[in-house]
């Protein structure tokens, strides 16, 4: 039976923010719908309303012309609306089977039979009796999907499902979603990743600042057109002028970088040698887990390796800790913004002060000079167009993009000679990515150097002057980026070799 889901004039207002402003949309089964928007555009609010987690201030939801009252998650379940949240709604310490049985109405035996049928039908392989905390992100998501499928849903809503998945897992997910769609389940796919919309979905609704700004067929759209709709302005195309000058000074030079670890979750690094010139961006590509984490930690001084030589501005710094390296004008932007770069519970200005460099006068005689730190923080907020001017705000309330701008700002305001960043645009939306990219290019134009460790090949090709690939802890030959194509990079990242 065909399913028809209609959202009519939904509004939801939070103090100081209109999350949904008169949203009306219509969905029909047999198609995959994308709901596209930047972080904070109101997508998540809308799906929370559809799944009964929050109630709208205004508006109605119709399923097959029946007006639904969705005042609790139970109502959504009863009406066969299934939802896979971005942050998994699983019980980590319970087994997979316990997770699935918690809201089941049948007895355990027949439930197990039904789960096994689903596992077989969609080719999922999950051990039902291990605790969920032992599963990978992709498997956890499958558990969530199975939980929905057990209730034979009419509508399946996926909230940014690929943000935690590897590429392989993403492909598997897309195959499953297409299968569900063929079986008549209406799929609503929430994302801010444009390519996913184009490759998976049939129709796309774009949201911006709580409003639906466009609904269209994806076949009529391109990455650029969607990006412009999402951001609301024409995005400047960024292309860096590659500057390879043979005679520039080498500002940073790494020799014999070896790292050996007993931890099976760490990658050993084998004899890495590379150098960075003044005003240059060295890109280091690779699929995550090939040693980037370890490399970043060694370059930043979190891990000290013996017998490695790191020369920076003609000084040997291999034995210095991160604080001392900062004093020599290095700066770092780690991959994990929340746990490595900033403390989410601290206020913005407190996070700024954490990075206490010698030249600043944030601390006097062991006391915190709050006024100076706040002034300094305000300057960062305005210079780096962070979306707030309240330095008292706790950092956890900043969106990913704004937090990254704050971190970059904090690092750059000391005018470092070398910035090392690891996946600086991970999980950000288009607008923020553009801003970060522009900033990184600006650094190079000011004759400062950058090392960009990234898993995003497009980003690397856009920003780097020279590129090397890291694979299983070994570094490939360093290539000028005009000689590099995405195909070549892909080959190297997969462990292949060229020429």
């Amino acid at each position, binding site marked *: 039976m065909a399913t028809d889901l209609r959202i009519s004039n939904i509004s939801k207002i939070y103090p100081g923010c209109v999350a949904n402003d008169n949203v009306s949309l219509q969905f029909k089964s047999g198609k995959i719908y994308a709901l596209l928007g930047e972080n904070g555009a109101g997508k998540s609010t809308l799906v929370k309303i559809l799944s009964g987690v929050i109630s709208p201030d205004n508006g109605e939801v119709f399923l097959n012309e029946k007006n639904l009252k969705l005042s609790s998650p139970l109502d959504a379940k009863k009406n066969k609306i299934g939802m896979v949240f971005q942050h998994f*709604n*699983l019980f980590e310490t*319970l087994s997979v089977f316990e997770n699935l049985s918690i809201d089941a109405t049948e007895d355990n035996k027949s439930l197990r039979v039904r789960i096994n049928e689903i596992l077989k039908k969609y080719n999922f392989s999950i051990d039902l009796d291990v605790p969920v905390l032992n599963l990978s992100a992709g498997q956890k998501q499958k558990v969530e999907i199975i939980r929905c499928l057990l209730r034979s849903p009419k509508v399946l809503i996926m909230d940014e499902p690929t943000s935690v998945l590897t590429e392989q897992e993403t492909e598997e997910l897309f195959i499953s979603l297409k299968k569900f769609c063929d079986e008549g389940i209406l799929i609503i796919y929430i994302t801010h990743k444009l390519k996913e919309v184009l490759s998976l979905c049939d129709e796309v609704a774009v949201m911006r600042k709580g409003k639906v700004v466009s609904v269209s067929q994806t076949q009529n759209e391109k990455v650029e057109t969607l990006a412009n709709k999402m951001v609301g302005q024409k995005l400047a195309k960024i292309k860096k002028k590659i500057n390879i000058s043979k005679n520039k000074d080498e500002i940073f030079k790494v020799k014999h970088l070896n790292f050996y670890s007993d931890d099976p979750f760490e990658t050993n690094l084998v004899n890495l040698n590379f150098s960075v010139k003044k005003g240059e961006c060295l890109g280091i590509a690779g699929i995550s887990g090939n040693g980037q984490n370890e490399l970043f930690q060694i370059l930043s001084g979190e891990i000290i390796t013996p017998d490695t030589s790191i020369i920076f501005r003609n000084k040997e710094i291999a034995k210095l800790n991160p604080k001392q390296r900062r004093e020599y004008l290095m700066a770092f932007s780690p991959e994990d913004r929340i746990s490595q770069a900033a403390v989410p519970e601290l206020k913005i200005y407190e996070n700024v002060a954490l990075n206490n460099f010698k030249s600043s006068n944030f601390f006097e005689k062991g006391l915190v000079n709050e006024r100076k730190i706040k002034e300094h923080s305000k300057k960062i907020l305005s210079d780096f167009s962070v979306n707030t001017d309240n330095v008292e705000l706790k950092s956890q309330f900043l969106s990913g993009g704004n937090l990254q701008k704050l971190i970059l700002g904090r690092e750059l305001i000391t005018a470092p000679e070398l910035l090392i960043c690891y996946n600086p645009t991970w999980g950000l939306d288009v607008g923020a990515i553009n801003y970060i990219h522009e900033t990184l290019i600006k650094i190079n134009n000011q004759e400062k150097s950058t090392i960009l460790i990234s898993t995003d090949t497009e980003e690397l090709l856009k920003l780097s002057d020279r590129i090397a690939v890291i694979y299983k802890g070994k570094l490939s030959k360093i290539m000028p980026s005009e000689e590099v194509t995405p195909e070549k990079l892909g080959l190297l990242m997969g462990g292949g070799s060229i020429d």
Partner: protein
Amino acid sequence: MSLDISFIGILIGSIMASSVPLILAASGELITERSGVLNLGVEGMMIIGAISGFALMVITDNLFIAIVGSMFSGVIISLIFGFLTQSLLTNHVATGLALTIFGIGLSAMLGKNFVGIPGKEFPILFSSLRESIPFFGPILFGHSIVLYFAFALPFLTNYFLKKTKLGLVVRAVGDSPVSASNQGINVIIVRYCCILYGGAMCGLAGAYLSLIYTPQWIENMTAGRGWIALALVVFATWSPIKVLIGALIFGGITILQLHMQAIGFRIPVQFLSALPYLMTIIVLVVISRDSRKIKLNTPTSLGRIFYKEK
């Protein structure tokens, strides 16, 4: 003092009796904590149970009413905690501490007129078997019904948590209240129930002290047993069976060190008095070393305030 076989039997019997209040209170608190609520008011709830049980016994002269009444008073006082932490979203730790202080003070006030009144003999079961079977007689028979209940409780609790649907719901709520709420479970009600159950068990533990173990009312007669029960839950890594083991070790060494003191061992008394605490912790730490199991048994959301998104 001769260490003959029947004496050992009596000794074990008395160790069991002394560990009953710990088992009861800890099993109750375990359920509360498994739902993610940290109630530090165990001592307060126990002492309220002790005084209300004793007072009801004196007033009504009916032990059944006294026992049920003590559990009911435990429920009432834990309801205060539940209302504050679940409905008014106060901090679990501060509220629990307040509850203990409140309970101790209130019990002292209520108990003023009951000091010095003799208790009533509590009926014991199978008293004839106790005398007729050597060694096993004093261990297995001649105890109050509450003792038998207390020794069954950890196994019942284990069964409840591991095998029943409701137990699964309790664990789920303790693991992730947000997920549970999104799955349509009413987190607040589940937590209220667990808090009230914990209160009832603590009330019963208190009544066991004032009606059965030392049948009289003495101010502050729980003497820190509530805190021991709380510690047992944590050191037993939220496993009911290990709570039972811990309570027995604690009770056992308490009794043994008293005998050692009486015999006049040349070990400082202070050290002997500290021994039960030390040994219980050591043993429980050793038997609970499996970090994977700790992770699986620990209620992830313990002590965190949950409120529903609107």
